[in-house]
């Protein structure tokens, strides 16, 4: 019970902070739109290419924006000494991990909730399918689960902002491949048989990495 309360308290703290400053969401959002804009010119997103590359464009955008948000969210804790206060609290350390992770997931989903409708309108593509939205959720979950753990590590290093994507992307490749493939499957209306292996992979990745992060988080924040 205290575990749940501690987790909720960390989430509430992050949300309250973000509600006042709005610096994380606005940065992630503007960045995402810029990335999509660049893709528009780099790939010439006409009707024909659009159907095949939409999933890829969206996931690259989310991955970049996500790493930006993760960096900022942990750097804020470190710079103002909040992390020390959090660690002093007499609660299980993994409650802090889950709090930060769910907070980051919330921010990422919020950005996606704004980017997806915009993309839909701008490119006249229907993205509102239950399966696709489920994939977006599962993919973001796996990405943020590893990302939060690694961001906690990288803020304590010398080259912090540069290091996070370098550490995160090779580890996140399975989740990104599975997300892109499953999203593309739903958007192109491929039969369920072909999508299911990717969904299974997403689920396995999410479960394995949340469990491992839960186990090793203590070692990452210990002083």
């Amino acid at each position, binding site marked *: 019970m205290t575990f749940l309360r501690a987790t909720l308290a960390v989430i509430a703290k992050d949300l309250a902070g973000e509600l006042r400053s709005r610096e994380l969401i606005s940065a992630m959002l503007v960045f995402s739109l810029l990335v999509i804009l660049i893709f528009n010119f780099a790939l010439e997103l006409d009707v024909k290419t659009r159907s095949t590359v939409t999933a890829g464009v969206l996931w690259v955008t989310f991955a970049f924006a996500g790493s930006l948000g993760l960096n900022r969210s942990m750097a804020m804790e470190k710079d103002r000494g909040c992390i020390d206060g959090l660690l002093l609290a007499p609660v299980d350390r993994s409650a802090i991990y889950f709090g930060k992770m769910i907070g980051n997931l919330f921010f990422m989903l919020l950005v996606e909730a704004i980017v997806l409708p915009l993309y839909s309108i701008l490119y006249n593509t229907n993205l509102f399918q239950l399966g696709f939205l489920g994939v977006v959720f599962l993919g973001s979950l796996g990405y943020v689960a590893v990302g939060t753990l690694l961001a906690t590590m990288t803020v304590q290093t010398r080259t912090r902002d540069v290091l996070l994507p370098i*550490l995160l992307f090779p580890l996140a490749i399975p989740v990104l491949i599975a997300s892109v493939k499953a999203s593309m499957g739903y958007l192109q209306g491929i039969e369920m048989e072909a999508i299911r292996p990717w969904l299974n992979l997403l689920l396995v990745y999410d479960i394995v*990495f949340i469990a491992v992060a839960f186990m090793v988080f203590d070692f*990452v924040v210990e002083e």
Partner: protein
Amino acid sequence: MQPKPKALTYLDIFTVILFLISLGLVFFYAPMEAVMGNVQRVFYYHVAVGWVGMLSFLAAAIAGILYLRSKDRKWDRVAVAAVEIGIVFTFLNIVTGSIWARPIWNTWWTWDPRLTTATIMELIYFAYLMLRQGIEDPERRARFGAVYVILGFISVPLTFFSARLFRTIHPVVIGTNQPGAEGQFDMTPKMVQTFLFSLFTFTFVFIDLMWHRLRLGKFAEQVEQLKLKFSQYT
């Protein structure tokens, strides 16, 4: 500073002798493959260096777990040593594969699951070395390194699996083969003997290199401590 142990010198000599024998086997004992010709001979070392690469990364992951459990700096030295050896041998694995693929697949590189996985694995362990470089405090460096090396080793099979869902053209010489593999062949008894001998040889190469690298790691630590001591006097 301790002198080089006698056993290590013997191991060096033994490994060199094994290596020379295995070279002889590869070039003179193993028969020429009927379809591919001499280029097939790269297979014996290609698999052997890949084996050493996997062995190193496995050793690094185990050392990472042991470090987190015991906080003994010895395990951190093992992890770095293993990762460095693993990176070199995985690279050799990719290079020898390319040399074979040029005449057989008619390209140096293709985005095949095995090739992709090997490359991503290489990048994970490069990231590991960069992470270590960014941390000054040796205790924290060891702790973070251990965490990352464990995460990396878990993600490698998942990457392989995700890439495997695409089709593969890489031949599987041992075990059942997938339809569509290019450059498949069956081994004759002489080929099997050569192959097993080169695996055996490279396992010894691995042990020998590990031992040397661990000694080096220990010396590096001693130098670091001496420097610290010295800086107190100046």
